[in-house]
């Protein structure tokens, strides 16, 4: 048998099957990578688009709570804009009236649920603030939350990469 004949036969038998080895390599690497950052609880808090959260070294995992977002322009409660941040910064005193009335609505709702169905009202609120936010705005938002029956405040941050 000549060498040329042997080569031709080999080509003919392999032509049916595409090369899967490289694809399997890729899939295996992908699988390992995805398994590594697999989370069992999913995203409990989805950060807002227009803010950059500050970075912190905390290890505590997020919890669900009423969502308060403080961006550079607006203060939002559960996605609904209630007050403008620059105006809130200029206010005298620590209470932002619009924010307080909105929060009290949620607090009353929570209390009602507690009375009727026994679902405990925890008064938890998660605050997402832009990292360039002035402390003056932040402290006012927190003081207002405290006044409006939401004393359990949590600041949402990005966890530092190890």
């Amino acid at each position, binding site marked *: *048998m000549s060498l040329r004949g*042997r080569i031709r*036969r*080999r080509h003919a*038998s392999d032509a049916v*099957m595409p090369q*899967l080895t490289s694809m*399997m390599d890729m*899939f295996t690497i*992908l*699988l390992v990578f*995805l*398994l590594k*950052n*697999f*989370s*069992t609880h*999913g*995203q*409990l*808090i989805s*950060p807002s688009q227009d803010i950059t*959260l*500050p*970075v*912190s*070294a*905390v*290890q*505590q*995992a*997020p*919890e669900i709570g009423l969502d308060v977002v403080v961006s550079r322009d607006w203060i939002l409660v559960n996605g609904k804009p209630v007050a403008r941040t620059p105006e809130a910064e200029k206010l005298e005193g*620590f209470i932002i009236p619009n924010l307080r009335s909105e929060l009290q609505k949620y607090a009353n709702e929570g209390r009602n649920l507690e009375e009727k169905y026994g679902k405990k009202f925890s008064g938890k609120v*998660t605050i997402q*603030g*832009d*990292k*360039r*936010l*002035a*402390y*003056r705005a*932040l*402290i006012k938002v*927190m*003081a207002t939350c*405290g*006044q409006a029956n939401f*004393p*359990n*405040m*949590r*600041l*949402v*941050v*990005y*966890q530092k990469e190890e």
Partner: protein
Amino acid sequence: MRTSRKHRYVFDLDPINMTPMMNLMVVLIPLLLTSAEFVRLGIIELNLPPAISATGMGAADEARSNARKLDLAVTITDRGFFISSSMAVLANEGEPTLPVLNGVHDYNGLSRKLWEIKQQARDLYPDLEQIIILAEPEIDYQTVVSTMDAARTIEIEGKTEILFPEVFLSATVR
């Protein structure tokens, strides 16, 4: 003759059936992609700012338990950190305890200073977990969060030691 048969044996071997494995991959990868966590979020638990609790029942509580307390406080200003307690301010004549170095606050210095304070105050005060953080109105959020980080733990010789994890936020008196 023998060699040619051996070769035929190698060439005619059927390739492994990859289809089930590919099916598995195709299902697993979208599943893991949807539940993957690319940015890790965390939360910092906060206690009520003393400014509010003081107007309510907090003031009465404080008066009742007027044991000697450390009342450690860190004030963030644009010039640096001021560390103070119920007894004294750790600064000389309006200069910050830890001045800003090259435009950056000295977080490592703060951790070390608080560690020293914790060592000295051990067994003397009941409130060795608590710290009050005050900031000037212009200080940005990231600086406040980094200060909390610096006040929470310190790495000493590879070990993580707890400093003052219970943070109270407060506003500066104008």
